[in-house]
């Protein structure tokens, strides 16, 4: 992965950024990501179902599926690799409808999510699963925004600098898992 092959982008995503990303692109993201996983997603969707506003503005937001380990004194955050995205599939279309413009996690997504990604023009990216210590280096600030009682599952803002990710699903339906695996499938 030579440096010139890496795209530098900013989060939150504007429409042009979301549309420009292609399956297989390596990116370094700077700016602000939202951190949310299972329990925070459940609460946000319950919030919408009650007709209430979300605790954060989803427009342009890029959500990172992460539940970090606790920071030691002097550290910003503990290990902070991605969690399995598929568990968020049930909630994702509703958040896309609220303006969510990107997601970072790991693993396959459902057909419903794939369809919603095209419809709302939002890409899905993967970070390296398990590389929690390495990824933590790109996180400069961790601020809990809501649901503090959820501990590592709280809704939080992450200030990031050169956060490494790979585009898996783009707004035109490109899928890097399929493209990458196919040439090596010998069964």
């Amino acid at each position, binding site marked *: 992965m030579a440096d010139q092959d890496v795209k530098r982008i900013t989060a939150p995503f504007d429409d042009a950024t979301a549309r420009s990303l292609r399956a297989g692109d390596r990116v370094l993201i700077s700016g602000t990501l939202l951190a949310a996983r299972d329990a925070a997603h459940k609460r946000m969707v319950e919030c919408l179902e009650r007709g209430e506003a979300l605790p954060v503005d989803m427009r342009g937001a890029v959500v990172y599926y992460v539940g970090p380990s606790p920071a030691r004194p002097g550290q910003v955050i503990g290990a902070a690799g991605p969690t399995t995205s598929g568990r968020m599939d049930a909630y994702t279309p509703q958040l896309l409808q609220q303006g969510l413009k990107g997601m970072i996690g*790991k693993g396959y997504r459902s057909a419903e999510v794939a369809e919603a990604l095209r419809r709302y023009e939002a890409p899905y990216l993967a970070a390296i699963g398990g590389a929690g*210590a390495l990824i933590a280096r790109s996180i400069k600030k961790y601020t809990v925004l809501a649901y503090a009682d959820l501990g*590592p599952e709280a809704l939080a803002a992450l200030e990031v600098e050169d956060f490494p990710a790979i585009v898996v699903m783009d707004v035109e339906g490109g899928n890097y898992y399929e493209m990458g695996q196919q040439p090596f499938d010998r069964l």
Partner: protein
Amino acid sequence: MKEIDAETISQAVARLAVQACCHLPDDVLQALARAGKEEASPTGRAILEQLIDNAALARSENMPICQDTGLAVIFADVGQNVRIVGGDFESAIHEGVRRGYTQGYLRKSSVAEPLFERKNTGDNTPAVIHTRIVPGDTLRLRLAPKGAGSENKSLVRMLVPADGLEGVRRVVLEAVRAAGPSACPPLVIGVGIGGTMEVAALCAKRAAARDIESHNADARYAALEEDLLDMVNKTGIGPQGFGGLVTALKVHVEWAPAHIASLPVAVNFNCHAARHAEVEL
């Protein structure tokens, strides 16, 4: 009769928890390095390099390799001539997990009840404890933290004897394809064959927690381990599911006697962070 103090057990478990979560064993590191030489995909090779860098960083900064520091699964081989004093055995282990996960800044990932409240216990207790009473006067504790990304893709299938070897291969292949990138390949795969439903699952779990360089003592099952590894690595899933030759670092098989009408098969996944630490007291 040898006496072991409950406090000694707690201290050992606390130490094992931090060691297992922050120090990837050398055998796993070597397997990742070897995989990097075998991998044909440039993306795959870059990922394997980053996993090695991640492990080195985690070790030097005493940070967990992965944020999911798992449930603390403990395999305890208790010598029958050992007597635990100053407390009870299981409470001593839970206390060790509580200390290790709290004082070691490890993530607390256990909920007290699974369906209705799902309230975090706050100290990663209880541990999952598998105890065997064995001859001798030593207590061997092996701690293998189990994250959910890989664990969630594990399964048990109740085959019948006529399904045979092909049935076993089919179950493993289906499981690996369904897990794809979610279980964080390159994987270490534990396969349990035989027993009853729960015995097959436990065999798979013990197999997944084995040292990476180990192989089954029975030559036929050792050959099956190689055969399954070859098959899994032909799926093309590759490191992190981005495609490549290395989908698994190893497949380990454990078996157990079974009913004349049964052929249970269990598959338990470990991600590339095949963490474990062991002590003998």
